[in-house]
């Protein structure tokens, strides 16, 4: 049965402010602050906790009926004052919700007013404002909006420095740690934004931290305008919405746009770029990682060849995963996203020009009922995406390989690698094992060597 189309059923996306809160969590000493109802902050905290298993305090201006009628200025100002008093943050990352956006609060003006009233010669937290109405786009748009707003607020002009800005997209804390390792090994100073590798995947606390340690310092972000280059991992983000786009326009920092480096070819492009920027070859360690990966591809190729996959998630992740699946001989029969940039199909055609002849379907703006309808026709061998696909996976008895965000029905989503040779290796191992396990379970003999 085809399902009705007007309502969204089991959404394949989250709302705009969620992405902003996560991005703000990647700035040192920063408190994310939602200008709207209390529920938004609470729901988003609960949602992020289910994946990251870390405390995440998100403040709220806590709208009431009067604020909705007369504007949220008073609540926002009281809220900022209280957050400043209790958290002593260096930065407050303010994201708007559908409520404050709809009543048309002029947040920049309120912030100016607030600063004028309360400064009194004392240092105030830096306030960053990202506009994130949830009736536009999805969580990934909020993520990019917050990163861009951060750079717009903090980046300063100055003499060029030996520095590269790295905008990694919404990858896992493990991925972020790997990126930092790569830059360190290349001896290339890097401004990674956001960096929630520690704030969202940190150690135990002997005392309470109002704000968990870690994140990119505001002082480092200030240097972004002086960098020699920006690298951003995205296939679908327009320059007008990206931090790298802003830095190029405002400070002439060249913008290098790469797909999320998943798979050998895309990872090669990333390492090639680093070689170009540093004018030195990649450290031997990464050659080794690559060699092991090529070797693993050889060992595992037969398990995965022409296996049919339905792939879903944020558009950039879907594009990157498609490139990877094609290079190992797998067939993404459906590339789906709840996002709707209008770019997904075009980007995929650039990767696979004969996409349609190969029978690869592309759909954006879908929900899980759409994907399920497709699954009934396409009969994939497995699904690859976040935990939200589990309902469909169970109902239709199709195995699910969990990647990305959120992963709330398996352990360790925050420690999963996705990018570079290392991430690709991990993904490849997991995919092969999924096939092996499936075969083993289906076998009446119970082979002990598969």
């Amino acid at each position, binding site marked *: 049965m085809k399902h009705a189309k007007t309502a969204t059923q089991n959404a394949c996306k989250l709302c705009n402010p969620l992405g902003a809160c996560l991005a703000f969590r990647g700035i040192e000493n920063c408190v994310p602050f939602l200008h709207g109802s209390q*529920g938004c902050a609470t729901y988003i905290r609960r949602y992020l*906790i289910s994946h990251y298993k870390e*405390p995440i305090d998100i403040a709220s201006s806590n709208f009431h009926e009067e604020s909705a009628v007369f504007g949220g200025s008073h609540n926002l100002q009281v*809220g900022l004052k209280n957050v400043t008093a209790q958290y002593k943050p260096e930065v407050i990352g303010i994201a708007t919700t559908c409520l404050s956006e709809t009543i048309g609060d002029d947040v920049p003006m309120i912030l100016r007013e607030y600063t004028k009233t309360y400064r009194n010669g004392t240092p105030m937290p830096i306030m960053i404002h990202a506009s994130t109405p949830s*009736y536009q786009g999805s969580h990934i748009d909020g993520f990019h909006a917050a990163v861009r707003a951060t750079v717009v607020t903090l980046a300063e002009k100055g003499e060029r420095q030996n520095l590269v800005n790295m905008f990694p997209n919404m990858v896992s804390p493990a991925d972020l740690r790997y990126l930092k390792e790569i830059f360190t090994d290349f001896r290339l100073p890097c401004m990674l934004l956001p960096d929630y590798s520690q704030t969202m995947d940190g150690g135990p606390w002997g005392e309470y931290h109002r704000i968990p340690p870690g994140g990119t310092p505001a002082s480092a972000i200030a240097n972004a305008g002086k960098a020699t280059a920006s690298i951003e991992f995205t296939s679908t983000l327009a320059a007008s919405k990206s931090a790298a786009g802003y830095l190029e326009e405002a400070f002439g920092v060249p913008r290098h746009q790469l797909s999320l480096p998943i798979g050998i070819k895309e990872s090669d492009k990333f390492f090639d770029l680093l070689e170009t920027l540093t004018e030195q070859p990649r450290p031997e360690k990464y050659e080794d990682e690559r060699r092991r990966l090529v070797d693993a591809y050889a060992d595992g190729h037969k398990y995965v060849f022409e296996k049919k996959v339905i792939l879903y998630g944020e558009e950039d992740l879907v594009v990157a995963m498609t490139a990877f699946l094609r290079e190992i001989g797998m067939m993404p029969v459906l590339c789906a996203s709840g996002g709707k940039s209008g770019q997904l199909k075009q980007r995929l055609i650039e990767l696979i020009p004969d996409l349609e002849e190969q029978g690869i379907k592309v759909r954006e703006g879908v929900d899980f009922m759409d994907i399920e309808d497709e699954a009934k026709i396409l009969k994939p061998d497995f699904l690859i995406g976040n935990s939200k696909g589990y309902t469909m996976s169970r109902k239709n008895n199709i195995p699910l390989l969990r990647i990305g965000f959120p992963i709330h029905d398996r352990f360790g989503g925050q420690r999963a690698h996705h990018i570079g040779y290392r991430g690709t290796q991990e993904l490849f191992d997991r995919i092969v094992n999924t096939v092996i396990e499936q075969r083993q379970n289906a076998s009446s003999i119970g082979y002990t060597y598969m």
Partner: protein
Amino acid sequence: MEHIGILEGREKQVFEKKIGAELSDIACETSSLSGSVSQRACVFCGSRVVLYPVADAIHIVHGPIGCAAYTWDIRGAVSSGPELHRLSFSTDLQEMDVIYGGEKKLYLSLIELIEQYKPKAAFIYSTCIVGLIGDDIDAVCKKVAAETGIPVLPVHSEGFKGTKKDGYKAACFALMKLIGTGSTEGISKLSINILGEFNLAGEAWIIRKYYERMGIEVVSTLTGDGRIDAVKRAHGASLNVVQCSGSMTSLAKDMEEKYGIPYIRVSYFGIEDMSKSLYDVALHFPDHPEIMEAAKQVVSEEVKKLYPELQKFKKALTGKKAAIYVGGAFKTFSLIKALRSIGMSVVLAGSQTGNKDDYKRLKEMCDEGTVIVDDSNPVELSKFILEKEADLLIGGVKERPIAFKLGIGFCDHNHERKIPLAGFVGMYNFALEVYQSVMSPVWQFAPRKGGNR
């Protein structure tokens, strides 16, 4: 360690029981302070949790995608039959809808979903934005009800229009519209409804069986394992038994007023309160002494099984200290008693939504030195957990990482739990879970224990 103060404006919501301390009223039932990181949610959340378990209705969230996405299949409320409540429906309003209104989209969504799923009813939750753009939800509901022939009920749950409690009320209001529309034929005089029991991990089934063993008919459970037809005939019961008092007292009051059904408040957590909740129902039927006899029989059989099993836990846990921060105050009372029965003391007790009477009673119940908080936040909770050297925190998903970061045990007593904690068997599960978490050797590596270095 850095001194952590209480946020200005919150002093009256925190109280430490000390000899000679003034027994002033705790400030409560206020909206959360702007900028504090409240553990509360919003009006929509209140409505959503109350109605969520109704399994043969569709629940459609009218607004942008977030509110529906974050509440998709999040509760542990299980159903013995249909499972429409585990699906997430949203009108997913876009910018153009915000400008031109979402009524048409809501109407089409409803017609299509009702055609596809053939539900017994539909609940329409309005979110923040709907309260602003002025969609006439009531008119749309009326129209769809007329066209489809099923009840289509608006739930006015705009997030900013009050607190979570107002959301409970909006949900109860929708339920009141259903109650009284079904036939009460064949309902025994010896009958009850259970209100505020959401069948988390099958808890309603456990409780229902106890009452059935007493010869009591349970007409309707609101809303655990809920069915529209059962809700419609709830007015046929002789007594309302209110478990989650925070959410459902308003419904009990309305039913008393309209149908003359009296209500009692109970709690199914811990041996003491669980037993009392059976006796109190029996007391309501004084002409039937056999019911009280049966209640005693149930309690005696269950306690005989349970008591020896608890002793192992008690032996291990005696002297350990707990902090409690849950939604409703009534649950806090039960948990204090339940913890005492396994040898533990309570050093912090609080709730998101308690009222003045609740806090008065809490003060009376607690030991000297216990801190009592209303509408607390992570900073405060952590401060008291460390200062009071708690070994366990009882709370919900949002409190869990605080406990684990600080290196203490945790028991999930919120609506996402997957293990039944109600009833006598629930007391066993509770003690087991507390034991497993508090006694785990992993805490030896926590910094507060010196990190084992």
